[in-house]
Each structure stands twice: as C-alpha cells, then as structure tokens.
C-alpha cells in the first residue's frame, strides 16, 4: 500500500474562522495544515497598509494563530501558510517574537521572500492584458506587483525541517502541494503526481466550501448544522485523494459538494494552471465511500507553465456606494425620479467620475434586469461610482443622503467610501523571479 499524507485546510481567507481548522489540527488525524489567507486583492491592500506603516502589511491575526496552532506545532504538526501577505519580514518578526513569548522552544521557521516584483514590473513595463494596456499607462497608480509562488521554495524549507513555512503570494494549491509531494517523496516534475496533489490542494484551499458551505439550497439541497461547519481534511496518496471532516462537526461531504468545489474557479478542466503544474481535472471520478467521506481519482497533469502569473495592484481613486429605500405602489417610479435628480446634481463632477452605475436591490442589482414582471413592493436604490478624487466620491455619497428630501417617503440612506484598489494580471518568465528562503530556529 502506498504512503498516505494527512493534511487539513484551515482557512478560506484572512477573515475566515480559525476554530474549525484548529479542531482538525488538534484531532490527531493530520500531520499537516495549510492555511490560505489571501484573495486576489489581499496583496494590493496589504501593500497599501505597508506604505502607510512599514511594520504592517502582513496578516493581522498572527497572535491568534499562534495561540490556536501552538499545540499542533509543538507536537510535531507542520503548517504552510501565505499569511506574510505583503510584508513577510513583518510577519517573521511577529511569528518569532510571538513564538518566543509563548515558549515554543525548538521550533524551526521557514520564510519565502522575493515575490514582490514591483520594480521589475515597472522597469519592464509589463503588459496588463485585462486592462488593454501596460504598466506605464498607469504611471504611479501601479502600487504593487507580486508573482505567484509555487511549491519549490516551500519544499526546500521543509527539507530543512521547518515546522512553519510563511510566504507572501504562495498560490493557494501550492500550500498543500508542497507538503504532499515532500512527504510522498515525489519530484516536483512528476507531473501526474503533482496534478493529483493539486486536486487535494484545490479541495482544501477554500476551507469549509469543501464541507458544505456555499451549498445549501432548500428544499433541493439540505446541509446539516451549518452553525459550525467542520474544516476539511484529506488523506492523499500518489493517485487518489480522500477527503472528509471530523465526526460531529457541521456540514456535509458528498459527491455534490465535491463536484462543486472541484470545478470552482476552474476554467478549462484539462488545463488548470498553477505555478506547479498544468493540472488536468478533465477525467476525475468522485465516489462516496462512507458518510461524509469522498474519494477523488483521476487527477493528473502536464508540465508547469513557463510563465508565472503576477498580480498587479492599481490605485484607481475612490469607490463610493450609497443606498436608500423606496416602498409601496409607485416605488419604481419614485426611484427613477431619484436617479434623474442624482444625475443632474452630479453634473459638475462628470469629469471626475470614471464609472457610475444605478440599480435597485430587490429588482435588478444582481442580474442587471428583473426576472419577473411583477412590480416589487419595495426597492433599495443603489448608486455606485468610481471617482478620481475623494471629493467627488464624497459628493456622490452626499447626493444619496440628499434624497432624504427627494421623492416622497425615501428612507434609510447609508453610504460607504473606500479606496478603489484594482488588481489585474501580468506575466513574467519563471527564471526571472528570484525567490529566497530563510530558516530561523528558536
């Protein structure tokens, strides 16, 4: 029988609940945990925090992590995470100081540096295909550029005994592919096995979405005890992935949940691109082998992409969103009148408004059109604008508030103004991204 790696997925993003993952870590069922703390925007938002304060830009919950995962780490468990976000150095300080304070003697910490490629992106004037332009078109609006990190530097750190590996933009599945391939002792150029490990990584990277979150749709799909979803854990061999959750935890692991998660954020199923592999999910099989226990087979892969994806953060000014409610007969007519008023009143700001949209919750906000012909009994008017200046964003918000005195019986105005940080993709040749690793023992 081939070797089996046991690994859990503890987070689906930085703000996710830590408890379910900690329960898996402390269950005795896994040797490894992977924690994905990032979304596409995280690096750019982290860079903004770092620019404002050079000691910031990493995940803010490292003390909470150390409290929760201390027992796991001190009893031989090992963790791979990307919670360095935009400041791995600051995360390192927080981890080392926090570990010393808690008496975590004897632990080995590994750090991956070098995913920040902002200087290179600007110097080479990288193409931004989704924007139809290049970095130079955006000048000093280009605020961050981070290359995706694959399994390679992580495996290098694991070989040196790291109990905890921390990086910045480590690709979500690579958090899992690295420990799986390390423990199975399979080469990172063994594409079929790396493809199978990527199946596991893809299931685990979204935490409870593999155990029934984002799935309930009564009366068609009933998910038990969603109050406390269990986090997912997997048993991975060279050619199959079995995943499950702890007994007694909430949620559901069945073939429907498995299929939904396997193809979540996948485009061409025969070419799921990661820094590690061109994974092939086109011939997978799922099988319910026991309650809350599913086996996935057929995951394979081909040579990894030659280029690394880079996430480029752009400062696009300010985003302003305002809402106010109208109800009863004629609510749509009054809302349309409100829209005309807003447009007329914002006329002086036209040159500073880069984009503006109008819609109504309960009517057309999600789908751009109503799906029925019935007039709604109430609507919540929504104005959203992207503005070049804060003054303009404030004006948009203020004009929504002014509707309090507009068409009759409007109420409950709220507004929100946030920096508009856009993230778009670019590509760099893999060999040009120089990643470095660092080991610290305490």
């Amino acid at each position, binding site marked *: 029988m081939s070797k089996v790696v046991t690994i859990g997925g503890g987070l689906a993003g930085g703000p996710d609940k830590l408890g379910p993952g900690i329960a898996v870590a402390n269950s005795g069922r896994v040797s490894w945990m992977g924690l994905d703390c990032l*979304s*596409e925007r995280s690096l750019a938002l982290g860079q903004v925090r770092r620019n404002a304060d050079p000691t910031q830009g990493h995940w803010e919950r490292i003390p909470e992590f150390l409290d929760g995962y201390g027992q796991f780490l001190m009893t031989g468990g090992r963790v791979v995470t990307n919670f360095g976000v935009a400041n791995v150095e600051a995360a390192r300080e927080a981890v080392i100081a926090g570990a010393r304070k808690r008496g975590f003697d004897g632990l080995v910490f590994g750090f991956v540096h070098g995913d920040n490629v902002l200087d290179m992106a600007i110097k080479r004037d990288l193409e931004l295909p989704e924007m139809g332009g290049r970095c130079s078109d955006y000048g000093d609006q280009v605020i961050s550029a981070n290359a995706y990190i694959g399994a390679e530097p992580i495996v290098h750190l694991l070989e040196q005994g790291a109990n905890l590996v921390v990086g910045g933009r480590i690709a979500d599945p690579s958090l899992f592919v690295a420990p799986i391939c390390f423990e199975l002792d399979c080469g990172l150029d063994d594409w079929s096995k790396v493809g199978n490990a990527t199946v596991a990584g893809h299931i685990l990277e979204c935490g409870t979405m593999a155990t029934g979150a984002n799935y309930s749709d009564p009366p068609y799909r009933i998910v038990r005890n969603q109050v406390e979803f269990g986090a997912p854990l997997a048993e991975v061999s060279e050619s199959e992935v079995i995943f499950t959750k702890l007994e007694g935890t909430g949620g559901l692991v069945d073939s429907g949940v498995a*299929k939904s998660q396997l*193809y*979540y954020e996948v*485009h*061409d199923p025969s070419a799921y691109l990661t820094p590690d592999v061109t994974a092939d999910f086109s011939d997978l*099989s799922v099988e319910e082998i026991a309650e809350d226990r599913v086996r996935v087979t057929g995951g394979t892969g081909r040579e990894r992409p030659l280029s690394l994806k880079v996430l480029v953060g752009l400062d696009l000014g300010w985003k302003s969103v305002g809402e106010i409610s109208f109800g009863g007969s004629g609510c749509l007519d009054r809302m349309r009148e409100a829209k005309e008023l807003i447009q007329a009143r914002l006329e002086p700001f036209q040159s500073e408004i880069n984009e503006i949209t109008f819609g109504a919750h309960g009517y057309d*906000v999600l789908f751009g059109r109503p799906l029925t012909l019935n007039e709604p009994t109430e609507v919540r008017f929504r104005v959203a604008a992207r503005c070049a200046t804060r003054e303009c964003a404030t004006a948009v918000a203020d004009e929504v508030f002014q509707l309090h005195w507009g068409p009759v019986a409007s109420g409950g105005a709220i507004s929100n103004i946030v920096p508009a940080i*856009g993230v778009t993709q670019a590509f760099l040749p893999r060999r040009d991204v120089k990643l470095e690793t660092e080991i610290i023992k305490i």
Partner: protein
Amino acid sequence: MKVREIAYSRSGDKGDISNVCVFAYDAINWPILRDSLTVDLVRAQFKDLVRGSITRYDLPKMWGMNFVMESALGGGVSMTLRADPQGRAFATLMLEIDLGAAPPEGSHAGPSEVCR
C-alpha cells in the same frame, strides 16, 4: 422545466472571468442537461452581464459542464461597481434558465428525491 429542477451549480471568479459549473443530480438527467443547456441559452440568460466569450466544457463523468464567461464581472472583483463583485449569484441565475422540456419519466428531479 428550470435547470434548478434537475441540477445544481457553483460560480467562481478569477479576474474578470466567471465560471459557473452545473451538475445534474442524477445520471438520467445528464443527457437532458447536455443537450438542452446550450451556450446560446446561457448567453440569452446572462445578456449584458457577460461582454466576452462563453465557452462550455463538458464533464460527462460528473454529469455536468463548466461554463467559462469572459469579461463577465464588470472589470473583475476588485474593480467592478456591481453589488455582487464575485458573481456568486451567477450560480442561481444559471439555475433559473428554462430548458423548455418536462422532466423525463422516471426522473429523480425535485426535492423529495434529492434531500438527505
């Protein structure tokens, strides 16, 4: 018959690309889904929400398919002004599509058979 009667779905986002995967609950309904849920029907349902191409990838062993829709999120999750930046609700918009056919004889469509 709406897609929701025989299938379930999940949507995901990467940049300005949305993917919506759709799976029949039962093998018997997979041919219906495969033959009737066409790219043209999906385009007609998503209308102006999707400005780019729509590609369908079939997953017969899963009794399902994956629709990949480009320029579909108003510029992408970080740039869009939409109320649902990730297009999470696209999964439900897909299930609202009317396939124009009745559930087949012996079909396990509907809530009573799929609840657990």
